[in-house]
């Protein structure tokens, strides 16, 4: 199995160790693990939890919001998955074993033989091929936000019904982690053949739970899949995800036991309130978060096609002051570059200070910003900031940047929309400037930087910018196996991205998850995208 990838496994272990040390340094898993001395799992019960946004559709391939995963992950399986007990290592899901060629050009997966879709048809290599073909080269009318990630796949072969072979155009050291991405739901080839867009509107997977019902504005339910391929799972009879977009309502529901968990994260103030009111009944787990907010400029609209305007708006933001202030009230914590602060490939603090928009002298930066706006002919710039109508952390972030831009004489109208119209506006380019998010599931630079690749290669790049130099650097860092050389390439990429400022990082998040003590088997991680299949969750009541 993995013995065949000596070089990359070594490198992977080095990276993992560094990451583990880094995350420990950042205070990952501050609280005691949920199940340090867990009793034996019990079967039965319906688990009710809150989802703080409603998914615009069901298709994880074309989504990058947690609202889709928290809704749909229990219904689907993936090829591999992250082992949250030993994060960031990966473990089996539909693939019971896998091999990687020494040259990283061939990945072979052997599938479990007892997996079936919820309609009773077996899961075969043809379904995996159809899924990954859809991810890397979506048919017309289908959106895959993972196109850039899987661009290195050359061909997918299916020598038998339970073996899949991925042959690469070029080596990609992070490929095995990409195969463990929680977004890569395995869809039925037969369903995709009938309608490639069927997963947007219908749910049919091979996960631990069968789809029950989705009542818009209210809830989603799932019932135990008795033919689930993992023996003895799931423990629960079913689950009920309740859409709760109002934090106050969610806090009350958590306190009253109407919902037993919220997996995305709550604010520090909400955490303190829950602990004060619920005491021992609530479990709080904290972690740094592989998630950051970005400010994205629509480069197809004037004057944001002018680098001077974008750079001025980027430089006017005092991220360090914002990180300190907002950390007390919002789920925002760290000022950092394109890679999560503290992770192995993140920029060092002293280097970050030299990056445009991250210096200590904010007065000088704002003077320069005003000069750039005058030079660009828009000294009294006015625009609409498109933002998501989620209390944490979008609203505080919007209030913060509006204040920062007012200080260079820019007048901003802050317009917030519900998740669906917000995402629709972002995808269609119907905005001037927006608060965007980079929702990662691991600290792999190829994943973190994919959002900055040219729009024609990465639809998740909301700035719609085309930049061949960034594309070249992205490809080069993805193929580089030497840590230091890759680190340097990433710094070049970062410098270019921040100089051009098509989209710029605002602040990185801090994750705080509350669960009732009765909820067992769920694992905390630095990503709210991971571990949401609920297959291992049980209720200790």
């Amino acid at each position, binding site marked *: 199995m993995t013995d065949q990838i000596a070089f990359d496994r070594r490198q992977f272990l080095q990276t993992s160790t560094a990451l583990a040390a880094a995350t420990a340094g950042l205070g990952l898993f501050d609280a005691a693990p949920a199940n340090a001395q867990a009793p034996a799992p019990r079967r039965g019960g319906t688990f009710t939890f809150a989802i703080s946004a409603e998914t615009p559709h069901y298709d994880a391939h074309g989504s990058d919001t947690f609202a889709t995963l928290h809704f749909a992950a229990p219904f689907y399986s993936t090829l591999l998955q992250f082992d949250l007990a030993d994060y960031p290592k990966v473990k089996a899901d539909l693939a019971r074993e896998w091999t990687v060629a020494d040259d990283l050009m061939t990945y072979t997966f052997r599938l479990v033989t007892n997996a079936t879709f919820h309609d009773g048809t077996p899961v075969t290599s043809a379904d995996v091929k159809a899924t990954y073909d859809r991810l890397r080269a979506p048919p017309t009318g289908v959106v895959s936000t993972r196109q850039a990630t899987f661009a290195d796949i050359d061909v997918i072969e299916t020598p038998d019904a339970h073996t899949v072979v991925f042959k690469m155009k070029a080596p990609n050291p992070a490929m095995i982690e990409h195969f463990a991405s929680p977004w890569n739901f395995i869809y039925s080839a037969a369903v995709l053949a009938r309608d490639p867009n069927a997963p947007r509107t219908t749910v049919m997977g091979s996960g631990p739970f069968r789809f029950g019902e989705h009542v818009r504005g209210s809830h989603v339910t799932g019932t135990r899949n008795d033919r689930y391929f993992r023996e003895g799972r799931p423990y629960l009879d079913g689950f009920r995800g309740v859409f709760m977009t109002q*934090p*106050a309502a969610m806090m009350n529901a958590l306190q009253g036991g109407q919902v037993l968990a919220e997996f995305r994260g709550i*604010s520090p*103030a*909400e955490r303190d*309130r829950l602990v004060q009111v619920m005491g021992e009944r609530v479990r709080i787990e904290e972690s740094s978060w592989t998630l950051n907010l970005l400010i994205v400029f629509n480069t197809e609209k004037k004057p944001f096609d002018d680098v001077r305007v974008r750079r001025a708006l980027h430089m006017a933001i005092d991220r360090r*002051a*914002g990180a*300190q*202030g*907002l950390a*007390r*009230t919002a789920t925002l914590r760290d000022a950092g570059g394109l890679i999560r602060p503290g992770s192995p490939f993140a920029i060092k603090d002293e280097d970050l200070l030299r990056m445009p928009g991250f210096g200590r002298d904010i007065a000088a930066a704002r003077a320069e910003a005003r000069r750039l706006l005058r030079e660009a002919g828009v000294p009294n710039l006015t625009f609409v900031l498109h933002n998501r*109508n989620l*209390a944490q952390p979008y*609203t*505080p972030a*919007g*209030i*913060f940047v*509006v*204040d920062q831009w*007012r200080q260079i004489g820019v007048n901003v*109208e*802050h*317009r*917030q929309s519900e998740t669906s119209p917000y995402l629709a506006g972002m995808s269609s380019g119907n905005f001037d400037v927006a608060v965007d998010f980079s929702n990662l599931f691991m600290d792999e630079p190829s994943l973190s930087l994919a959002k900055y690749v040219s729009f024609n290669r990465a639809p998740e790049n909301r700035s719609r910018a085309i930049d061949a130099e960034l594309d070249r650097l992205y490809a080069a860092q993805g193929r580089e196996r030497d840590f230091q050389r890759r680190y340097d390439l990433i710094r070049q990429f970062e410098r270019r991205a921040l100089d051009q400022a098509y989209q710029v990082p605002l602040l990185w998040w801090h994750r705080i998850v509350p669960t009732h003590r009765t909820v067992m088997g769920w694992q905390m991680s630095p990503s709210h995208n991971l571990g949401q299949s609920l297959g291992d969750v049980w209720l200790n009541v």
Partner: protein
Amino acid sequence: MAGAVSQPNVVYAPVKRRSALAQFCIAQPLGAISGVAIVVMLFGGAFAEYVAPYDPLAIDFGAMLAPPSWEHWMGTDAFGRDIFSRVIYGARTALTIGFFSSLFGCVLGAILGVASAYFGGRIDMLTQRFIDIMLSFPIIVLALVVVAMLGRNLVAGVDVNLIVAIAIPIVPKVARVVRSAALSIREMPYIDAARAAGFGHLRIIFRHMVPNVAAPFLIMFTAFIAQAILLEASLSFLGLGVTEPTPAWGLMLSGNASDFYREAPWMILFPGLAISVAVFAFNLFGDSLRDWLDPKFKV
């Protein structure tokens, strides 16, 4: 001989006529007090730039959640913004939306009510059934539907669609009251005379009927400003009205205020007080105006 008749030399003391304002203050002291409160709010809102000690949008992380003090009379919020300044600027938002919503709703309602009464017959019947349908919706539900349908449309910093959304539920209420007043006016001889003189409908309605329903109109106009302020605060609280960082009383009660009301009760106390005072003042002023203008209440 005829004696001269001497005229008694009577000197009449000049009649001291008090101004209408003074008469109102004497007759309706509570109304006068509420009027003063309204004037103070209007002044504060109109000259907020000069009255407010701080920029209402300026974030100061060094002063987050500060309690009321000499520096910040009403304390600060979770972004270190001065609540006193935000309450003053919030008066501008509340009064602008309240005034224009009430004006728009009352004018439309008055026209509908007078026209319905004047034309009578099938037009009256259809108009009244339409008004019945409108009245069957709770005011907040109707406003929610309208604001959700219209979205936002900022003109000079004011959301015109929000004004329309708040004005629409006012229309049927005003139309119903104005119609009842106009029905009695329609039967007056001077209306018959106007018809006999060949005046057109529009002239009769606007020249002869509308001025005669001015008293109930004015009373409702002031009373509905209070309702509009309350509705604007409710919609903002629900996230459908004014959006952050605009200072608005209802908005100040939601968001971070709900997170910190235990540690920083001033975050909800002062905006809540501002809403209460404004609504109370306009309601009281409207009642006093009705008592003063309507002859029935002078008996």
